[in-house]
């Protein structure tokens, strides 16, 4: 994990691109739709979530592909550490580079949509719980798509449908808060998703990588 973070630090363009993409997409909507406060506040949480989802997806193809091409994955599979450890580390690094900055940035973006402070807080909370699930699911898909011809397209076909439930509950939390309902059920479901995927998916990543290096 520390190696991945150091690599991201050495070559920040990719991480910056992810964040810039998110900020741009989320900022273009108010410009395109026009200054209509009610409408903007209504669509805000959803748009921010879609932006975060696409930004998280943007960083996925490189997650394992570079390590696969230069042989680092072979060395990881042959290391005396269990696959669970380094797979979790790589996914955590992906989240720190993509999900975490988006979460931190989201209240600022939310202001453009005239979201209330409570809604902003719930939006950030749902991103904080939801983006790690995106990294985990995306990591598993990226590992499965390794070595396949047209891997990028395959990755989109695999990952985007799996992202849909996270998007629905994530955006739903902030929307519930905005309409005066409790966001708790949505956040709990996201939390449950996070626990389930954190337990199962790193293991799946390890198995998929082992198949890919064969």
């Amino acid at each position, binding site marked *: 994990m520390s190696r991945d973070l150091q*690599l991201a630090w050495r070559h920040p363009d990719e991480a910056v691109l992810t964040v810039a993409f998110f900020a741009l997409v989320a900022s273009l909507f108010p410009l395109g739709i026009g200054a209509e406060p009610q409408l903007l506040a209504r669509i805000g949480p959803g748009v921010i979530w879609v932006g975060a989802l696409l930004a998280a997806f943007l960083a996925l193809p490189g997650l394992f592909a570079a390590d696969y091409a230069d042989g680092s994955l*072979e060395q990881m599979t042959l290391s005396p550490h269990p696959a669970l450890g*380094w797979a979790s580390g790589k996914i955590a690094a992906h989240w720190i580079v993509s999900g975490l900055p988006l979460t931190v940035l989201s209240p600022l973006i939310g202001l453009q949509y005239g979201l209330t402070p409570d809604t902003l807080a719930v939006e950030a909370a749902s991103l904080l719980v939801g983006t790690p699930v995106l990294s985990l699911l995306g990591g598993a898909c990226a590992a499965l798509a390794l070595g396949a011809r047209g891997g990028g397209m395959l990755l989109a076909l695999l990952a985007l449908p799996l992202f849909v439930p996270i998007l629905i509950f994530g955006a739903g939390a902030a929307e519930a808060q905005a309409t005066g309902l409790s966001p708790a059920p949505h956040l709990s479901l996201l939390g449950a998703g996070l626990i389930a995927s954190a337990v199962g998916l790193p293991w799946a990543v390890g198995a998929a990588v082992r198949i890919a290096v064969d």
Partner: protein
Amino acid sequence: MTAPHRSGQPDVLQVRGIACRRGVALLFSGLDFEVAGGELLCVRGPNGCGKTTLLRCVTGLTRPDDGAVLWKGVSTRTDALAMHAGMAFSGHLPGLKDDLSAEENLEFALRLRGATVSVEQRREALAAVGLEKRRRLPARRLSAGQRRRIGLARLSLDPAELWVLDEPLTALDDAGQALFIEFLDRHLARGGLALAATHHRLAPPSGVVRELRLG
């Protein structure tokens, strides 16, 4: 299939009836051999006869179609991590990150291997392979031979008992090849064992060299 002269040490690595097919072609089958401490087993044969595949089957990267690999008497099917802890693999892919310097690449590779190595030891190893002045350059600015030399430095610091080497002399100049032989010799003299696929004649002064011919 295996040459008779043996070192008399107990076998650390045993391979029993291993077989592998690629598509419809059977590369090898029923292959038995063992390697003991202080021994170097050279796998030889024409291109495409399955040398690399055999090495990958032994390491566990590729699943053999039949047979078993035993590390200190225990099948790697039941405990692969024990073997991985005692094995260093150097394949066709260098496992280097272009954006990291030689020194950082070495540091991460060794940390991944679970080896604790001090900064001074790393510097010494890089100096020994002639990369002293270039240790801060990103790996992308190094030549193919210099990148192989980072791999040599990694091998020299790795505490692994077994070295699995696929064409270890590729891209190395005469001095680099001599350096590799020196490292290999030291490794064998320490009681280490090595399995290498190569077209060159490897003759480390100490240690027993045996050959396995494929194809």
